[in-house]
């Protein structure tokens, strides 16, 4: 997604939930929402962490003011 963020791999955004953060990112970096979501849900093959913990509520996961949010390839199965 660095082609949308002027090469930066870490950006700041506001939002009370992951969904809110993505909306904020879309405002600042148009096009990013389509990379992260498919039909309004997190894209297949992705997972999201908040402060190092898997966000089980996914888009509804609460996010704190200084939280670190990461979008990662999904890790599942065993």
């Amino acid at each position, binding site marked *: 997604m660095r082609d949308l963020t002027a090469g930066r791999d870490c950006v700041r955004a506001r939002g009370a939930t992951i969904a809110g953060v993505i909306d904020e990112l879309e405002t600042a970096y148009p096009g990013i929402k389509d*990379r992260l979501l*498919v039909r309004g849900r997190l894209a*297949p093959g992705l997972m999201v962490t908040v402060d190092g913990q898997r966000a089980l509520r996914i888009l509804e996961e609460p996010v704190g003011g200084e939280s670190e949010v990461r*979008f990662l*390839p*999904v890790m*599942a*199965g*065993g």
Partner: protein
Amino acid sequence: MAAKTRVSARINGELVDFLCEPRQSLLECLREILGLMGSKEGCNDGNCGACSVLLNGCVVNSCLVLGVEVDGQEVTTVEGLADWRGLHPLQQAFLDNDAFQCGYCIPGVLIASKALLDREANPSEESIRTWLAGNLCRCTGYDKIVRAVQDAATRLRQPRQDESTSQDKSPTAAATDYRVVGSRPPRHDGPDKVTGRALFGPDWNLPGMLYGKMVRSPHAHARIRSIDTRKAASFPGVYAVVTAQDFRWAEDDNNNLDENAVNSKYLYENMLAREKVLYVGHPIAAVAASSPHIAEEAANLIEVQYDVLPAVTDVRAAMQPGAPLLHENLRTQSLSKPSQKPSNIGSHFQHVKGDPSKGFALADVIVEREFTTATVHQGYIEPHACTAWWGLDGKLTVWTTTQGAFGLRDQLARLLAHPMSGIRVIPAEVGGAFGGKLPIYVFLEPVAALLSRKANRPVKMTMTRAEVFLATNPTSGTHMKAKIGATREGRITAAQAELYFEAGAYPSSHIIGYLGFAAGFMFAPYDIPHGQIDAYDVVVNKPRTAAYRAPGVTQANFPAEQVIDELAVKLAMDPITLRLKNGVHEGSELINGTSHGSIGAEEVLRAAQSSAHYRTPLSGPYRGRGVAHGYWGNWGSRSCCTIQVNGDGTVTLVSGSVDLSGTRTTVAMQAAEVLGVSLDRIQSSVGDTDSIGYTDFTGGSRTTFSTGIAAIAAADDAIAQMRGRAALLWGVEVQDVTFDRGIFATHRTSEQKMTFAEVAGKLAETGGPVTGTGNVNPQGWGGGFGTHIVDVQVDPETGKVDILRYTAVQDVGKAVHPGYVEGQIQGGAVQGIGWGLYEGYQYNPQGDMLNPGFLDYKIPTATDVPMIETVIIEVPGPNHPYGVRGVGEVPIVPPPAALANAIYRATGVRVSDLPMTPVRLLEAMGVI
């Protein structure tokens, strides 16, 4: 149907008459005619030994003997070993030595062992291993099996009266605060598994049952022009035929857009091909008939017309411009700019930490290599099998071998457009799985269900061994590049890797996230300031790939641990010292940006370095010692457990976790610890989807952790209710009642005490039954590290690698049952040895797999491996009352790299391709 022949034989001491067709094997006669399900079918071609029986005292594979051949002969099956006195000493020794995990191979192993002990009263280890070379076991690594046979030999030389010595086996030597956790009690499913009573996937027979058979593609890549089922449908004895037309059509759609995202279209197409076939063995149609032989004959009558297309079976070739495209609509999925060009690359992602170019600029030494690994199969001895019965009331019941009954139920509901409540999945005992029987992947169950609905009869489907290899879900072959740099003091400054994983016929990124594990955990044992990992998921004309124990990580560990080892050589450092110097601790950040929690990485490395094995010098020509270190993140997730307190003080525990290797016992042990009762007071069983709450599949090394927490919660709940009952009996408030180690007490009025059993006996008069429930979704589990040390000797003329000594060190948090933990570590290590030295799918240019059987796809036998020494480290894991960490995945990760490093030290050559066969070794050594 062929005319039947009357056979009279003495079977397990009884004279038995039966009728069979001349083409029916003894195995089929025992199982399908006589109902003796103890002898198992693993390969049906005499290579696995699961069907071993004694014929006039000699071991034979009953799949290779015709039923008519035993007329007038004497046959002994596993059901004939125990007598009125109880278990045979061999059976008891297998129980006492924890000598099995899934138990599927055990009937055959017991029979073969009996034949040995009938001949030799005191066989050597070498003799036992040689004798059992024809009996494959995929779970145990053979160590405990050999010890059990030795133990049985000792018992048989003594009077037969002390066979139940194990019933109160003492706890481990290490003193603990626990009474049950950490001890080695016998397992709940043990007697069933050593006597042949345990029912696995292929063992369910119902009245009026039909047999299903698939029609499969002979081509690796072809467009289907037509399918004509008319001759098959009218064949006598055929009740139903289904093709893809019988399933509803799904558009490209991910039906669960989260971690287990599954593209429905791909699932449907993989079950029964609609337009194209994408690998040899791809199912196209299925028939149900009154016998397996009629079903096979009818399947051969289905006519399929193809337009054959060029195939591609290698990940590098599949990425080349002009490579045959498997899916015309597939575009590379990525977080970067979307691709509009059709490609075989299903997805690409990149992790970057710091500035890799800066990191490499700081390095004094840089190592860079390319690697490949072959497609390998999980190799469970039990084939996929299920029985489906779609009743006229609309209720679908499925008996099957699966790692997750609930996940399978939910998949069936989606695929068959049937309500979840209308489907009951009853999990059978599972004869090995290792990720290959996850409910995310479905092969037989939906097809058997449709056949059953059409035929209005139960339908059983069992794969042949060739079908298991050709058409289930092996794990990815790969092409990988790895680069690492370090200062001359041995501080790693940067690492970089490119991982190209074969997805098989369908993009794995839409199925499961093991590529995420590969990239995430590749360098997870090391604190590396700068790193970059690019990972690619590539479709090829092979069966769709899936998880195999620590999915993706064994492959990625192979290059990572070799370049680390090469660094150690270049820096002239001890390889464990280099690893310690760069080792991770709590808070260390991985290249994917996540951080380690509480871990025991350093403790494991130090234990390996101070182990007797590592401190013992190894010398001699063509001998070498290799070390590798590995990581698996483990898992938590949803589990349910109920605990019913019975009036006599016993406890009935039901959990939703399918038991692959003894977890119904380790879960019950945790409950016993809370309840303050001995384990033999708890009956522990696995529930079906109508009898217990939703529980995620058994996999990812999660069950003893998560379902253990569910059991603890259920036990706490039961105790809380029983405190209320005791309070009622004593006329005090519940908060005035305490509970400690099985005793309820109060000091409110006067000191009074009641045992758990005494309170249980008064439930009826104090309000009725007590059932404790635990519904949990624990997070924050702890990852696990393992370090393996292996000594090898290479024959310079043949290239054969002999393993002289093997030690596996692992942090398990808390070993709930040390015997099972040792078994998991030994079994995982031996699977990894097979991956390293022997195993791999072989293809011709047309995409035909050349070795779809245990004869040509070699997995380790008892003669290939030594005893596997285990060192258990217990650094308590976080967020579990007893500190449990997952165990099962870690031990398969280091072996291939450890072997490669040992081979390098033995020969001076680095082998970068798996498997490291004698031919590859001789080529690398310049001998051929």
